[in-house]
């Protein structure tokens, strides 16, 4: 035998050493475990459907029930404007992006705490877990989008939809969904890293979700906010996502080029900083279990 390593062995050389860098991401491992991502998505999917009585019907029912509650509480009782649109369509549309975000956030933020037993026994890039949640939740989003269109067509035919039209921006819907996924991933990676270190922060998650929903104009349209304060909303990327959903599907909403750019930049920042802090946490997370 020669001293040169065989090409076969050299191909798989793994060097383990303390890694102090914030920016190192193990792209190769992510690529090598790509099949696991597919299987995790499948697992999330199957386990969610098989364990419930109504199965996927929940994803249709949940926003409908929320819409009924919002319509009664905020529209009928509190008389909050819905931008001249039928309250049903207004809330259903606002909930589209919001529900996708909040479902991703609540589950993915608990990545470390719910998987600690698994993570202490086997190595794979931990990033695959939140990623698989965001991908598998997309199915629920698609169902809710279909529900929305069914109602949209129904209201149009009955002529009770209010002043709405599908705008040219509806073509950009895929981009909007991608941005929602990115925001939720970024936020949940941060939260996952923080709850791994400080368990008590888990109790904050429902509260954050609630507060964030009010700040994202799901219930009250941004147009109801005094004009001189509207600029504040652009620092919450979910606010412009919700407004953009309404703009593209109903033709109402308050969007400016500046607010779109700001929210896109903040989204990118959240996503990348989230990935880095998550990667840093995953390397020694198991020492604190």
């Amino acid at each position, binding site marked *: 035998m020669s001293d040169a390593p065989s090409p076969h062995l050299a191909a798989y050389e793994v060097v383990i050493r*303390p890694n102090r860098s914030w920016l190192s991401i193990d792209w190769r491992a992510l690529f090598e475990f790509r099949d696991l991502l597919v299987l995790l998505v499948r697992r999330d999917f199957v386990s969610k459907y098989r364990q419930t009585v109504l199965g996927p019907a929940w994803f249709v029912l949940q926003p409908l029930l929320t819409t009924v509650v919002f319509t009664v509480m905020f529209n009928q009782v509190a008389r909050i404007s819905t931008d001249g649109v039928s309250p049903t369509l207004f809330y259903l549309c606002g909930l589209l992006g919001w529900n996708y975000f909040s479902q991703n956030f609540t589950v993915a933020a608990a990545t470390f705490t719910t998987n600690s037993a698994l993570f202490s026994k*086997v190595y794979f890039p931990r990033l695959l877990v939140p990623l698989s949640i965001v991908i598998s939740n997309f199915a629920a989003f698609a169902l809710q989008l279909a529900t929305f269109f069914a109602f949209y067509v129904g209201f149009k035919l009955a002529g009770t939809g209010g002043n709405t039209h599908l705008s040219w921006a509806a073509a950009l819907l895929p981009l909007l969904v991608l941005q929602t996924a990115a925001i939720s991933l970024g936020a949940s990676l941060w939260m996952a890293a923080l709850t791994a270190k400080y368990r*008590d922060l888990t109790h904050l998650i429902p509260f954050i979700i609630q507060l964030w929903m009010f700040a994202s104009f799901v219930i009250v349209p941004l147009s109801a906010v005094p004009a001189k304060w509207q600029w504040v909303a652009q620092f919450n990327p979910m606010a412009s996502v919700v407004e953009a959903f309404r703009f593209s599907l109903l033709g109402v909403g308050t969007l400016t080029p500046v607010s779109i750019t700001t929210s896109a930049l903040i989204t990118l920042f959240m996503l990348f900083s989230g990935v880095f802090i998550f990667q840093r946490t995953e390397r020694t997370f198991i020492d604190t279990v």
Partner: protein
Amino acid sequence: MGQPVIEVRNLSKLYRLGAIGASSLRESVERLWLRWRRSGKGVALPGPSYRLSPEQRGTDPNTFWALKDVSFDIRPGEIVGIIGQNGAGKSTLLKILSRITEPTAGQAILRGRVGSLLEVGTGFHPELSGRENIYLNGAMLGMRTNEINRKLDEIIAFSEIEDFVDTPVKRYSSGMYVRLAFAVAAHLEPEILLVDEVLAVGDAAFQKKCLGKMDDVAKHGRTVLLVSHNMIAVQSLCPRVICVGGGRITADGPAAEIVQDYLQVLRKDTGIALDQRIDRAGDGTARIVSLKIESATGGAVHSSSPLKVTIGYRSDKALRRPKFTASIYNVNDTGIFALDSDAAGGLPETLPAMGEVTCVTEPINLTAGRCFMNVTLLKGGVVADYIPQAGVFDVESEDFFGSGKVPGRDWVLCLLKNQWEARSS
């Protein structure tokens, strides 16, 4: 010969004590506050725990080196056993090599695909069918989907569950579950296989199959690193053994020799020296100087082991109306047992000024995991000496019910043998 397949150089791992359980934001703030206040004042923080040689202590009193400057080479095709006592650093070493956690210093180079088997059936999902779980579990262990496609028939045949492969595994009997889990693991074909004590799970037939498969793996020129408390398994499987103690390699060589020496050291071991500990309370008229926690039946402490606790003490004069207590608690500070010499009875009214007392328990029936022990010595009802976290021991998993299925510490603390029967009504 070519390059070593595993090259470990000065691998070290520093752990923080006291933060073993989940930390809270409040603790972090307190720690920061203390560190800030401490400059010069020498506030004594809760002391370090067990078996720490001076060089094992970190510069911060709250840290210790679980591994310190560990170096070794393993050549392709070698099967190496790693042995050592509780807390010696074996598991830490395996966790670093399988990339579950990172070292604090040093490095390890692994030349080849690594498969680690720290548990059988990792990530099995009860709602998924046997077939789906084969794919999921295989992928977690590092197999590609097409690789599993190729081996699927073989895996199913090996597991002997052909008829149930499309049934959710939650409907499996425990035997079927373990067979399937092991079938997946057995078909993992990495160049380097890291195995932790999986031999302790499952029935005798399963263990035999497992041993046979490991032998097979070796014959195919792959490299195996096996951590085990089972000296017989280690000796029969591994030509070479590395013994770890106090975070360092204490011996490395032919299995028979190293195991022999190790067992001898075990017998001579006097336990944990406690006389240097400063974090103690009591009037000091008598001191606890050593503590030894072991299985009363020898070997490692398993779920069904009776415990033998030996406490050494020293005093100026004979002890009148002595009472020893040893309380056992888990990482969350939840009390599990109190061994109390008064409650149990049996100690004489007066003890000599220097000596040791031994307490032997019934089988502990605890799930696998870490336990801590506080010890107290009272004289005539007054605390003479008290040492918090005087000792630590790990309960190793075993096939408690003989069914291959054992609940884990993440679910319950204690195990209870039980029988079920059904009647028609």
